[in-house]
């Protein structure tokens, strides 16, 4: 029993979350790039998917990421009003808000889905976002969809 508990504890310590980050081409991807070339340190937990606009991300894609075992999903795009396509992120925020409520209702922990606006100049903000989100997912533990179903 005690052994199991310690095993679990070490497993949790070893747990490296897998996070899918959908980044918009014009702002957040450039922000991530800036964080990279400025050599800012952040955990290697994210797998980036570059999209032309966060407005192109269908809730299917987010759900599919969770289905395939992602522990967390980040959607990051331009600030409201800065969208390269003018209004793409208006749609994103509605979709994510609805999806979060739905995840909450079905017990899938809506905290695992995170929306943020990161501009091309905000490398620091990007690194900080990845740090805090990775920490949060570490506290939440592995996705139940991966472990139990």
């Amino acid at each position: 029993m005690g052994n199991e508990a310690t095993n679990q504890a070490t497993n949790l310590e070893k747990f490296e979350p897998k996070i899918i980050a959908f980044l918009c081409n014009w702002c957040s991807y450039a922000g991530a790039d800036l964080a990279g070339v400025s050599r800012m340190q952040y955990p290697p937990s994210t797998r980036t998917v570059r999209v032309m606009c966060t407005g192109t991300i269908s809730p299917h894609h987010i759900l599919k990421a969770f289905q395939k075992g992602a522990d967390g999903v980040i959607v990051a795009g331009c600030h409201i009003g800065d969208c390269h396509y003018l209004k793409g992120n208006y749609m994103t925020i509605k979709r994510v808000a609805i999806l979060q409520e739905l995840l909450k209702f079905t017990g899938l922990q809506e905290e695992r889905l995170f929306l943020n606006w990161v501009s091309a100049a905000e490398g620091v903000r990007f690194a900080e976002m990845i740090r805090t989100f990775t920490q949060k997912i570490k506290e939440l533990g592995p996705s139940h969809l991966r472990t139990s179903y």
Partner: protein
Amino acid sequence: MKEMSEKVKKLLNEGKIKGFVGLKQQHGQPGPHLFTKENIADLESLVVGDVRYALNKVLLKLAHRYPKDRFGVMVRGCDERGLNELFKWNQLSRDRVVPVGIACSPALAEACECYKPYPTEWVVGEKTEGIIRSKRLENNEKLNQDERLQYWMEQFNKCIKCYGCRDACPMCFCKVCSIQDRNFILTGKLPPENPTFHLSRAIHMVGRCIDCGLCEEACPSDIPVRTLYKKVGKIVEDLFDYKTGDEPEEKSPLNLLGEPTLDISDVNK
């Protein structure tokens, strides 16, 4: 129940409608039927009661086939909400549909937990007060997060992927269906990829589901999908102050870009 057939007969004889989509007793049970002036005697077996059917779906097919003609249709409260949404989603033209209303019985309203079991105008039945609070939703929300996940995964995994919920849904009018897209949902696997399969459908019901409950009646595995879609309706109401199907003009929140109604502080709670 005579009032309905009288009214339909009048509409047909006056030439105001080309046909009337209603229910007819056939092969020992009620089924959808197109009543026309040529076969006006059919109206004697018109079924008016608590039987429900996705008549709007039949109407959609007819309207696509005969775009210049005008059709009548039997509507309940839910059907009227459906018509409102179909008009707004540009699937039907308002001036080519003549609704003939029927108010639901209290027993049916109770079973449906319908908040408005009557259309704006009706010829048959009495107005019944709607049920605002949904017990099944409240019971579900009482569970904690782990219990909810367990409950829903258990329910979702009963799915045999028959697409009955989609086929029965009067609001499912897409020509290409995402939950039948092999890139999103693996083919040849049972149960389907859950929760993606059911949540994808739930997402599509945003601003569309008019809470008629035909999906749940169609489901051979008794998955409480209606509870899920009821919640979807509630989410839309809470977030966007939009009650699906109630407004004849205002478009649903995911139907248009509009102005930003939400702030980043409204998400990631």
